[in-house]
């Protein structure tokens, strides 16, 4: 658009007037067009319509980030800050409870030492917000290996090494064979775990067996809980349907 504004109007095209309105014309064209437009009622109407459009856009409300998205991002960042954080193993916790009850204490204690993870007791009534605190232990040996998911594969976990699949599960809302949040909640209830909507949930394989992994908020920013259930057997009356439960604190 160079200096031919007079020849192109009136009436001027809406696009040309919008460029004038946006300050997108070169100075010479703008200087030539501006006084002509200001004397043309139809052009002034179009400029007023563009002003009204801008006002509509300015008046769109802010959209705060939903809580579940904020929690998911907090969890992802917390995980990023602690890529090798050890986790609290549910099986170990049950073992410790058994130990307190005097069931096979020596054998279970040896197993706990062998896997080298922090072990806490799971209280009788758990909620997603009251889990224990994982102690970061840089000397803890790797307890398993995991490979990141590849196309067409389920995320695969071995041992208790959830780190490599954490990000993928966090981004997913796929209940797999459990189908929905209610069934997951039923399964968790079997181990006295009360949970709302998971931050992320996905079918995985745990030691080559089909399972469903969920990441739950744990009550404080940056804290979350990893649970893994056996979709074939889990239910409100089966504590053994929960294969793993680990709480990570910031």
């Amino acid at each position, binding site marked *: 658009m160079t200096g031919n504004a007079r020849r192109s109007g009136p009436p001027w095209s809406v696009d040309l007037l*919008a460029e004038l309105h946006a300050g997108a014309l070169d100075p010479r064209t703008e200087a030539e067009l501006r006084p002509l437009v200001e004397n043309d009622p139809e052009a002034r109407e179009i400029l007023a319509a563009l002003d*009204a459009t801008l006002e509509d856009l300015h008046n769109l409300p802010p*959209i*705060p980030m939903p809580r579940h998205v904020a929690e998911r991002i907090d969890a992802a*960042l917390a995980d990023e800050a602690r890529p090798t954080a050890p986790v609290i193993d549910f099986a170990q916790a049950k073992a410790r409870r058994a130990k307190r009850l005097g069931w096979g204490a020596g054998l279970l204690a040896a197993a706990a030492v062998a896997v080298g993870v922090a072990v806490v007791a799971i209280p009788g009534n758990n909620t997603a917000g009251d889990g224990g605190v994982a102690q970061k232990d840089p000397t803890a040996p790797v307890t398993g290996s995991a490979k990141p998911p590849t196309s067409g594969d389920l995320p695969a976990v071995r041992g208790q090494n959830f780190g490599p699949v954490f990000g993928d599960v966090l981004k997913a809302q796929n209940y797999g064979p459990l189908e929905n949040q209610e069934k997951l909640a039923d399964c968790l209830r079997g181990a006295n775990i009360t949970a709302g909507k998971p931050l992320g949930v996905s079918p995985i394989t745990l030691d080559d067996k089909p399972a469903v992994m969920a990441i739950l908020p744990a009550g404080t920013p940056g804290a979350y809980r990893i649970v893994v259930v056996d979709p074939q057997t889990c239910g409100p009356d089966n504590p053994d349907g929960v294969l793993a439960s680990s709480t990570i604190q910031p």
Partner: protein
Amino acid sequence: MTAAASSDADLITAHAAGDPHAFSELVRRHRDRMWAVALRTLRDPEEAADALQEAFISAFRAAASFRAESQVTTWLHRIVVNACLDRMRRRQTRPTVPLPEAGPGEPVAPRDAMAERETRLVVQAALNELPEEQRAPIVLVDVEGYSVAETAQLLGIAEGTVKSRCARGRAKLAKVLGHLRNQGADANVPVNDVQVQQGRQLEER
């Protein structure tokens, strides 16, 4: 170090020094605005959440090499905008997902508030129909209030290009939103704009 009084630059420095909470605090400060940008450019809450998560993780990893000559906010926003643009480029045409209607504190019942909410929905629907190359600068400049210069920097295009894309987008919106009475000559209005216009007319009754 993560006290509210810390500047964004202080938080980046603290993060680089190993403060495990500094980066999360930085994200908390900016996440609402970035969420709005992501949601309005991508139009899909799941995609917006994925884009933001990827962007924040990427920023987390790159923060140690952040150079103080650029503003922390601009740097972080550029990463987010790029993540959104990457997704926009990668994907094919997707159905539009309705956006949340409003922010917190929105009145529930009063008649005026309802009319206002309807108007916002119509405006958002019209915005969603713009071509992506026009929607992104309009979201940044006209909705989120970034300057033309900031937007040019965020989008990696010339300031003149930002202005002309905004101009073309606004012209379409003015027609779609019914601010221009005579829309016959220019035919750049998508088919389903008719529905948007009808919505507005209904709302004005």
